[in-house]
């Protein structure tokens, strides 16, 4: 049942993209997303597509994994395309009864679709090639300057990684409790909404208790190891920029400037 849900969709393999510093990947993804909104012509999108394809190729992640993330936004995509297609005023190309399709509508709809698809694919590349822990590490380092404004960066990152770590454990626990209650004749599937909600009590109560127990155990274990939060803590695997990371930054910034020049200045 719950085994099928995969969270944190990391795809394990060894590639240049996998080895990049998570900070580079976070910033790179951000730059890529910015580029998608800067560009507003097809040549620009061709460059974005080329960039994306090269990165996917380098990451050695099978293409079907990128497409998998798309399923979640199919509905959103269809709505965005339909609205833009039919509701954009302009030069009419095609019209039936009251429905009009304009040249501007076609442009807008296709831009919107391309943007959304590239957006999802771009961020998929990041999550597929970076473990959740690396991501939180990277985020912590990137947000470090915010400490000046008294933002508890380390604590936020710690909470994120603990939450991520506990997802598979709690999923397994849910599966176990569910089975135990089914063995006692519980029925989680049939009945109307109210009945279904009620049937969740025998699942949720033990689950919450177990979550609190685990949280308590973890807190005790951290306390016993003298955990004391952010300042002056060192890392076992500190993030240090390598040569390839610097090159990756150069490539990303170069890509963004190219998009701006082609998308805005030349055309």
């Amino acid at each position, binding site marked *: 049942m719950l085994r099928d849900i995969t969270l944190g969709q990391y795809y394990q393999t060894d590639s240049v993209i996998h080895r990049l510093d998570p900070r580079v990947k976070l910033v790179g993804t951000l730059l890529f997303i910015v580029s998608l909104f800067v560009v507003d012509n097809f040549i620009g999108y061709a460059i974005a597509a080329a960039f994306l394809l090269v990165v996917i190729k380098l990451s050695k992640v099978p293409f079907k994994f990128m497409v998998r993330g798309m399923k979640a936004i199919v509905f959103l995509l269809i709505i965005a395309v339909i609205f833009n297609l039919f509701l954009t005023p302009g030069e009419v190309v095609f019209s039936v009864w009251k429905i009009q399709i304009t040249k501007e509508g076609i442009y807008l709809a296709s831009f919107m679709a391309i943007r959304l698809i590239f957006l999802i694919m771009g961020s998929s590349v990041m999550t597929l090639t970076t473990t959740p822990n690396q991501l939180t590490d990277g985020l912590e380092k990137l947000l470090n300057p915010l400490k000046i404004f008294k933002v508890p960066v380390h604590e936020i990152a710690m909470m994120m990684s603990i939450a991520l770590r506990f997802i598979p454990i709690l999923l397994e626990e849910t599966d176990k409790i569910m089975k*135990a209650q*089914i*063995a006692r*004749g519980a029925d989680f599937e049939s009945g109307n909404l109210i009945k279904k909600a009620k049937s969740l*009590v025998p699942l949720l109560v033990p689950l919450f*208790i177990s979550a609190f127990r685990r949280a308590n155990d973890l807190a005790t274990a951290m306390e016993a190891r003298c955990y004391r939060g952010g300042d002056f803590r060192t890392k076992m695997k500190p993030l240090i920029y390598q040569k390839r990371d610097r090159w990756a930054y150069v490539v990303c910034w170069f890509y963004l400037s190219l998009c701006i020049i082609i998308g805005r200045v030349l055309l």
Partner: protein
Amino acid sequence: MSIILNHVNHIYEEDTAMAFPALTDINLEIPDGQFIGLIGHTGSGKSTLVQHLNGLLKPTSGEIYYNGADINEEGFNKKELRSKVGLVFQYPEHQLFEIDVFSDVCFGPKNLGLEKKEVELRAYTALKQVGIADEYFYQSPFDLSGGQKRRVAIAGVLAMKPEVLILDEPTAGLDPKGRDEILDQIAKLREETGMTVILVSHSMEDVAKYVDRIIVMNKSRVLFDDVPKEVFRHYKELEKVGLAAPQITYIMQELKAKGLNVDTDITTLEEAKEAILKALGKK
């Protein structure tokens, strides 16, 4: 009336790179009233096997018959099956959720759609069967001790009046006293009701005293399936798969090797005492 498993296979995550066989070609017949010990190392497939017996898991291939009916056939009433084949999971105390002990035990029979009177009668009987005193009935289950919680959880399954009771490691995490209490209670219960009991464990010591048949699982297959003393004769093979015969078996084997004329098939402490005294007395 029995449970029959016919060439049952179960593979986790089939069709992926992580495919993992948990059960391979399992053929078993479990007649009514037997007291069975299901022994195996962690990951040998014993928990997977028992979850097949009440239809929580579906075999990848093969059939399971309960009283002659294929339980995975369409239209088979699984809810009824689950009331007949009661499964107590590992650490069953983690599934308690009601505000008091009595209501928690009522959960099972209530799900069977019984009348309120019958539900309460069954809950009362079940709690008595596991030896929970009246004064605990209206306490929160979370205020009880570990051993008591576990007994309440077992009562929760017993209240459904199963014909087959399966207990997955009922003694895990209990101290020796709590362990003996639970096992004695199960043995007593089985004597009173005559139901089939399947005791899952990784310790031979636990089950040797009680059961009349031992099924040893290793790496998703059934390795031995026989009466205890026959299984313990293979104590060298058992060691190879990370299990061990009861300590008594080793003592008796060594005494025999040293020249003392004792019966090496003895499995319990009491029998061993008698045999050694007898052998020494005759000398």
